[in-house]
């Protein structure tokens, strides 16, 4: 009992409770409760709208910023970090069989990319279209006088095609197809062509002396460099539009075809080459016995990547000093 209760009289309290039973009129009750409901009926909606709007707006801002950062990130910052771990895996044993080594390098490189996530479908579509259009162009390409004089068959356009491939290439994270079933039909055709070549491995010299006309006759009988290039084109998404520059020799003037091999080795376009493509090219040149050109490519590679060059190069090329 509190201090106020000390002064209470039970009789008075009971009498008051019995006497005082007045109630407000029901109409007044209804009016007041209706006013109360109207007052809060408008309030929470005004407060609720911003609560529902803010999370959506914040998520949209975060998404836009993230996409912007991804789009603005230069691909060169990503290439070495993803290619470098794969390069040592692709390192072949120092075998004296140049053609087989070349193919082995390519096959070793493919699984490294295959472990990466599947590429977006739109990036696969581009190589298919190009590959369908490529064979007729390829068949005509060796007929040019420039290549006939060089006697290097269809492998020679590669230096110009690789920069284009690198330029057109998707980001380095875009992988090779995970399995043959995932590959495009053109890719499978190129793989079968390479398998056919493996059954009758030609020597590097014989391969260089193969007439261009025979190379253009049919794809399975194409010379190894052409098959390699085709495989490179189809195996990597980097080859999306690689066949487009292949058509260039057919329309180029003969004077352009007279450029020396050395000048082709180190071009401005080579700067756009990816590390993997560069390593493959150096190996191929070494396998073909063109050590001087391989050394120049290696020197160019070292000049491009400088102190990172040793980290990017596989062991066999790292020890090779230009």
């Amino acid at each position, binding site marked *: 009992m*509190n*201090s*106020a209760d000390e*002064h*209470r*009289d039970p*009789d*008075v*309290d*009971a*009498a*008051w*409770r*019995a*006497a*005082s039973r*007045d*109630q*407000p*009129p029901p109409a*007044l*009750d209804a*009016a*007041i*409760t209706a*006013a*109360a*409901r109207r*007052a*809060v*009926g408008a*309030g*929470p909606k005004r*407060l609720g709208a911003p609560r529902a709007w803010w999370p959506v707006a914040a998520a949209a801002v975060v998404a836009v910023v993230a996409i912007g950062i991804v789009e603005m990130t230069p691909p060169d910052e990503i290439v070495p970090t993803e290619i470098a771990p794969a390069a040592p895996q692709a390192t072949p044993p120092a075998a004296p069989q140049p053609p087989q080594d070349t193919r082995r390098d390519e096959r070793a490189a493919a699984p490294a990319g295959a472990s990466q996530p599947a590429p977006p479908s739109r990036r696969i579509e581009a190589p298919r279209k190009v590959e369908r259009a490529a064979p007729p162009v390829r068949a005509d390409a060796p007929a040019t006088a420039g290549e006939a004089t060089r006697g290097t068959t269809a492998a020679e356009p590669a230096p110009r095609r690789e920069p284009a491939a690198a330029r057109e290439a998707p980001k380095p994270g875009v992988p090779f197809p995970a399995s043959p079933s995932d590959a495009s039909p053109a890719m499978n055709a190129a793989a079968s062509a390479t398998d056919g070549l493996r059954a009758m491995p030609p020597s590097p010299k014989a391969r260089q002396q193969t007439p261009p006309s025979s190379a253009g006759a049919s794809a399975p009988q194409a010379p190894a460099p052409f098959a390699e290039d085709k495989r490179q084109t189809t195996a990597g998404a980097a080859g999306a539009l690689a066949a487009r520059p292949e058509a260039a020799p057919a329309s180029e003037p003969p004077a352009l075809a007279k450029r020396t091999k050395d000048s082709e080795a180190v071009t401005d376009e080579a700067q756009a080459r990816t590390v993997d493509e560069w390593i493959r090219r150096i190996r191929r040149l070494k396998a073909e016995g063109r050590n001087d050109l391989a050394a120049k490519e290696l020197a160019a590679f070292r000049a491009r990547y400088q102190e990172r060059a040793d980290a990017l190069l596989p062991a066999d090329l790292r020890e090779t000093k230009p």
Partner: protein
Amino acid sequence: MLAYAAGDAAAFDTLYARHKSGVYRYLLRQCRDAGIAEQLFQDVWMNLIRVRASYQPSAKFTTWLYTLAHNRLIDHHRASGRVTLVSTDDESHADIVAALPASRRNEPESRASNRELGARLKDAVAALPAAQRDAFLLQQEGGLTLEEIAALTGVGAETVKSRLRYATNKLRAELADLSPQLREDTG
């Protein structure tokens, strides 16, 4: 009240059902006019609805609600020129207390018409000085403690205690002749 301030209309219904009778009777006994009491009653609840967002639970809700009613009543008395909420136990107000009308129980016609217990009690309360009546009604209708009444009316706890004591004694004296009947009716 916090739930209602957050937008829960059902919370207001609960509050209103719990306190409407006490507030209405408090106002009715103070102003003695049903029409005016209803107007003041509506003003109190509308004021509560209007200031719901600024409600701070620093005290019991009942205290806050009766503070709104008390202040509205003072405003009404000021507007009508009747500000008589003075303490009758304060010697400085002795002249005012002397000027207060006597209880109507001494009026023969009043006694003849108010035979009923409830009516006599209401008359007795109405005959109390305003400050004592205010304290009594806050205690009876609002269920407020002595300290809460003191805080609400802005006087000391001892003053409230004195007012309640005076009011209770007067009511008991008023109902002395009806005590056996009162016990039977309320027991």
